[in-house]
């Protein structure tokens, strides 16, 4: 579905991408990870045709540099901070982009409903929160039923619930045989969403392989997502005091990052204090290091 060969991009004397080469098959999810400035966004913008580059990128066999329009017809792109015309409503925006993509207006309405913006359809884009704009970006990316989704830091600005929905969206696309390439600096996202990992370091691909090989080094960590019975404010200091875990609140959810063997302590602390857990989700975390057994460096 996606093939990159020796993709190189220079900004003056700075080499932002240095010969990136990889393939992504249909129905697979590839996470591109790396620090800020590693070249993730440059790679993604090159795939989408927003940047000129040396080398070759093929999307479904179509050369991005030669037939950008044809390649982009097969790509659903979500930018890190999606920007839309602020004076258009959500509905007008979706219809406008549906026209650009040659999709029927009905598809625009369905996409808006699908991302949960149906009741905000008449709201102006300028009045949307960052998370809602991200949802609108996801709706636009779905128009025309693209075969490849390219998502640049899709979790940015989303609350916990929206992040979980995003993961469900990615899994659903994979189940439909679509390919997904996403960039992230949340390493915890990798095992939860990706089949493969591509690590970029200062423009170079330092690892590409199955996410199973992208394993923990010496800091095994998990992340718990918890929805409690209205005692969230009480729970946060309790968890922090009990085990010194990192706790963050996002809407009605809290996330707790802790050593893998410290998960039970969190549950014990909450139950001992009479706090009922309405819902929870656990994700195993990784670090950027790999075991070097399955990937190509």
């Amino acid at each position, binding site marked *: 579905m996606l093939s990159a060969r020796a993709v190189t991009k220079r900004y003056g004397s700075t080499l932002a991408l240095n010969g990136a080469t990889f393939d992504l098959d249909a129905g697979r999810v590839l996470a591109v990870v790396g620090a800020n400035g590693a070249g993730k966004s440059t790679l993604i913008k090159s795939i989408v*045709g*927003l940047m000129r580059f040396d080398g070759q990128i093929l999307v479904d066999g179509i050369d991005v540099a030669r037939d950008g329009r044809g390649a*982009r017809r097969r790509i659903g792109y979500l930018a890190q901070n999606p*920007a839309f015309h602020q004076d258009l409503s959500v509905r007008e925006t979706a219809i406008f982009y549906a026209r650009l993509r040659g999709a029927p207006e009905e598809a625009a309405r369905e996409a808006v409903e699908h991302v949960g913006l149906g009741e905000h359809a008449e709201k102006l884009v300028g009045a949307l929160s960052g998370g809602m704009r991200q949802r609108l970006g996801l709706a636009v990316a779905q128009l025309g039923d693209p075969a490849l989704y390219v998502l640049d830091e899709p979790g940015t600005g989303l609350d916990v619930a929206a992040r979980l929905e995003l993961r469900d969206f990615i899994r659903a696309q994979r189940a439909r045989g679509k390919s997904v390439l996403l960039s992230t600096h949340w390493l915890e996202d990798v095992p939860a969403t990706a089949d493969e990992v591509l690590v970029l370091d200062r423009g170079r691909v330092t690892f590409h392989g199955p996410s199973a090989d992208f394993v923990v080094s010496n800091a095994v960590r998990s992340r718990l997502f918890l929805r409690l019975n209205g005692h969230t404010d009480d729970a946060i200091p309790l968890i922090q005091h009990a085990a010194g875990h990192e706790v963050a609140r996002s809407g009605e959810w809290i996330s707790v990052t802790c050593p893998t063997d410290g998960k039970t302590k969190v549950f014990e602390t909450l139950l001992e204090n009479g706090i009922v857990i309405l819902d929870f989700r656990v994700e195993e975390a990784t670090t950027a290091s790999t075991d070097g057994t399955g990937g190509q460096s």
Partner: protein
Amino acid sequence: MTATMAIFGKELRDAVRSRWLVAFALTFALVALALAVVQEQGSVGAQGFNRTTASLINLCLLLVPLLALILGASAIAGERDRGTLGTLLSQPLSSADLLIGKYLGLTVAVWAAVVLGFGAAGLLVALVSPVTDFGHYLLFVVLSGALASAMLSIGMLISVLSEGRSKALAIAVLTWFALVLFYNLVAIGFALSVASSGEMLLVSTLLNPVETVRILAVLSLEPDLHVLGPLGAYLYVEFGPALSAVILGVALLAWAGVPLTAAAAIFRKQDA
């Protein structure tokens, strides 16, 4: 083509929503009407349209280029400022599709504003003055639209070359000053002192779409050598009115096409 039409439709809708174009059309209509009424009071005989048209030449040569340059300069640079350029170009359309869609949308919008403004005034003038020179009036509306098309094309080139909207607008206003206010002095001075020749006068005329339209308008109304000015007078004497009109018309078409083509070529090579 679908994508170009979508961009075209959006530009047109934005223009309809925009207060600028409505204000422009109203201003033109009101000023045209005021000029017609004033001149009707002082006129002898039925020559309302001809007098109104002649009086509107200078107003048109000031306002139409300014409006078109500003709209053109905002077209791409504004999207760049808002961050929407990347969103647009990540869709299945080429940079040329975007540029042409915007140009066509803005051109139709400005033509509509010019036609509405002058049209409304023309109807009112016809009520107070017997119609004798309606053809000239219509020709002048067409010339105004053609001038807008040329200046939009230059504005689009400015827009593509500018990093942001404020920079593009500054360059557009400077361009307007240069073409509308200072050009004649500089061009004539250069043609007569540095490279004193008829060819230089001709080139000087064709290098400015505002001057091109001014001479075309005067040629169609009253080919008086004093009114034509030195550049127009040279053309008139050298080529006659018909050939001069053809040369100027071709130059105007080139002004509408060449900057836009250059903008498309540059835009295609830029990173979004």
